[in-house]
Structures are given as C-alpha cells and as structure tokens.
C-alpha cells in the first residue's frame, strides 16, 4: 500500500524547519488572519504568493508535493468562486480576490504543516491551552487515517476483483456500501483500541495522551 504522510518532509534541515514551533504556529495564525481580513489588491496578492513560494523553496518542499496537496483543496475553492457571483451581489473581481485570499491561506497551510512534525504541533497546541480532548482526537486521526485508507483500498480491490465489467453506477453503489462497512469496522476497531488503552492503565479522567 502506498502511504504519504502530511508531515513527511517535516524533518529536513532548513531555516524554516529550524524555527521554533511556537514562532511558526503564531506566524501561521497571523498570516491566516492577514489573508482573510486585511483589504488587499492584486499587487499585494502577487507579492504574497511570491513570498509564500519563496518560503516553500527555502523549505525545500518538492513542487509536485505542494501541487498535489493543493489539488485536494482546489476543487472546493473553484466551487466557492463560481457560487459567489451567482448567488451574492458581488462582482467577479470580488470573487477573484476571495479566491486569492483562500489560495494564499492554503499555500501557507501547506508550508506550515509540511515543516512541522505532527507530534511537535500537537505538543505546541497542548501548551497553548487547546483542550486535551481535541489533542487526543487529532492524535488518533493521525495514527489511524492511513490504516482506514488501507482498509478501504483493500475492500475496493476485493470488489473490483469480483466485478470485471462494472458500470459507473454500480461502482458508486458499491462504494457507498463500502463506506458503510468502513464505519462499522472502524467502530469495532475503536473498541479494541480502547480495550488496549484500558489494559495499559488508561483512564479518561486522569490520564494524559
């Protein structure tokens, strides 16, 4: 099974990686605020993108990697841009600016998430007072996301092996069933994981994760 990790480039040694995690986190949050709220023109958008691109170059993140990450979010972005002028009384230029803001935020997010090990990020969030519960949920998502993807891929493979010529409709019906199965299996797995945690003395009230 192929695996890519959100933080697989997080242990390189570049000036950006070397920044203290808290500094990085605060700069990132400040940038998000700036992209979202401060009025901008196309000139400034250009400068922002240039700055962020420079950042990814300094962090030595492969271009393809950044592009792939972008592709996950871009479809949503495109939808939003199409819908703004259609349903709200705003011009295409406004929509363009909104898109640019979102684009910059995504680029900043990719740059940030790829240069900080996920574990370090969780530690830092925890120190900044994010509730234990949220940290635990993130930690489990990080650990089990790819286990679930693997499981889905195996089911998909098994289904494909038994349906040599399937139609698109058939595919989507099968996929929705598989997702249902995945939820049940995940539920059962979560019970086993909880048992494993209990066996090692875990108690929700007292223990830290």
């Amino acid at each position, binding site marked *: 099974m192929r695996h890519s990790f959100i933080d697989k480039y997080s242990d390189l040694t570049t000036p950006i990686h070397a920044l203290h995690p808290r500094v990085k986190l605060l700069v990132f949050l400040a940038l998000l605020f700036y992209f979202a709220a401060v009025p901008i023109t196309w000139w400034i958008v250009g400068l922002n993108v240039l700055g962020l691109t420079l950042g990814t170059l300094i962090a030595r993140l492969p271009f393809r990697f950044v592009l792939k990450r972008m592709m996950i979010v871009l479809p949503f972005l495109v939808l939003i841009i199409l819908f703004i002028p259609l349903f709200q009384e705003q011009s295409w230029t406004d929509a363009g600016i909104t898109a640019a803001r979102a684009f910059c935020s995504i680029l900043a997010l990719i740059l940030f998430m790829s240069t900080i090990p996920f574990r370090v990020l969780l530690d830092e969030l925890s120190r900044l007072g994010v509730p234990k519960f949220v940290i635990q949920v993130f930690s489990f998502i990080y650990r089990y996301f*790819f286990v679930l993807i693997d499981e889905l891929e195996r089911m998909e493979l098994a289904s494909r092996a038994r349906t040599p010529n399937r139609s698109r409709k058939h595919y989507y019906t099968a996929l929705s069933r598989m997702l249902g199965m995945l939820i049940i299996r995940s539920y059962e797995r979560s019970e086993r*994981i909880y048992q494993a945690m209990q066996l*090692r003395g*875990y108690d929700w009230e007292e*223990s830290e*994760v």
Partner: protein
Amino acid sequence: MTSLIEFENYTYRYPDGTTALSGFTMNVEQRERVGIVGPNGAGKTTALLALSGLIFGEGTIRIDGETLQKKNGRQLRSRVGLVFQNPDDQLFMPTVYEDVVFGPKNLGWNAAQVDKAAKEALDAVELPGYEQKSSHHLSSGEKKRVAIATVLAMQPDILVLDEPTTNLDPHARRRLMQLLASLEISTIIAGHDLELILELCTRAVIINNGAVIKTGEPKELFQDKLLMEENYLEVPYSLRKVREDVY
C-alpha cells in the same frame, strides 16, 4: 503455593446469548509457558479478555491468589500483559516511544522510571533506536515486537499472547520465538501455531466449545491423532510418524 493464574468454573455469555466459555477451569504456575490451542471460536480470545479484566462472567479468576473483580479490575489488569492479535489495535500513539511509555506513565511512575522501563523494554525486543519511528511505518514483525515492548514496559506478572505469529514471515516468526524463549516471564500463548507451542511451551491446554478438553505435555497431546482431529486440529508435521504428502 498458589498458582499464578487460576480459572475456576468460569462461564461467559456474549450479550447475544452465545456461550463463549462454560465451566472453564485451568491454571498457570509461576515461570510456566502454557499454550492454549483449539479451533476457531473455541473461546481462546474470550478467555484472554476475561483474564485481562476486560469482560466479566460467572465463576472465579484468581491472579496470584487475588480474585479478579470489577472493583480491583483496573489494578489487577496491569499485571496481565495482553498482546493483541493485530498490533495496529495496540499501537495507537504517534511514535513508538510514546506507545511504550503510555502504560508506565498511567501507572504513575516518575519520569526516570518511565524512561528506564521504556529503554529496557525496547532492548528486550531488540528494537533500540526505534523510539521516534511512527508505528505505521514498521513491518508486521517489528509492530508485533513493539506491541510486546509496550506490555513488557509495565513489568507484568504474565505475558499473554493472542495468535502471536499471525501475518509474520518465517524469519520474523523465528525471531519472535527466540524473543519469547529469552524472556523469563510466565507466558500464555493462544493460537493455532502448534509448532511454536511445541517448541516453547512446557504445557498445552486443548479447549473446545468453551471448555478445557485436555491438558498435558504438548508433545504428548499433539501426537494423539484422534484427540487432535476431534478438536479440529491436526498432528504437527514434526510429530508425524509417517510423513504423508497428503494428510
């Protein structure tokens, strides 16, 4: 002298009414390695879960003379080191180190003790230097050994393994067997890997339909073709007198 583990007339029914264990009685002595074998659905895993205080049925389970009850379950549970069949269920933390220290930290040990226990456990399973690795990147054999380390770090009285050699290639299986042989700790091994039990265990317990059918020296039990076949098992290859091509 009391046995380390005693099951006495233990019965467990699942909520749907299926009886998984009925009148289950067996014991494990100090420093003994016992193999529990039986067909699928015989009650092996249920017995291990009950021993770990994760499920409660009727009858008695004693750990080192103390009766396992709901109220002391949490405390006694930490003395039983259960290694799950699927290490992905057992390794839930982002890094190997965090997984290994999870138990000791919950036992309330201080930082130095926790660190020492983790180091010793990883040394015992021959994986020093794996601290910062992510469990998801490990091979099945490595995952299994890390899972054992997470349990050893808590210094349990007994190590309990559910189908330990599932998904392991012959080399990883052999290393695991050497590891288990090197650990000086009471051990229960449940599963179908009869050759492993033959090599490692001093006693075997054949169970079927939730009850103990026969207990004895592994070689003696496993040679009994009729007994084995009645319980949906087979005589291990190494014990067959005639090495037929087709069994």
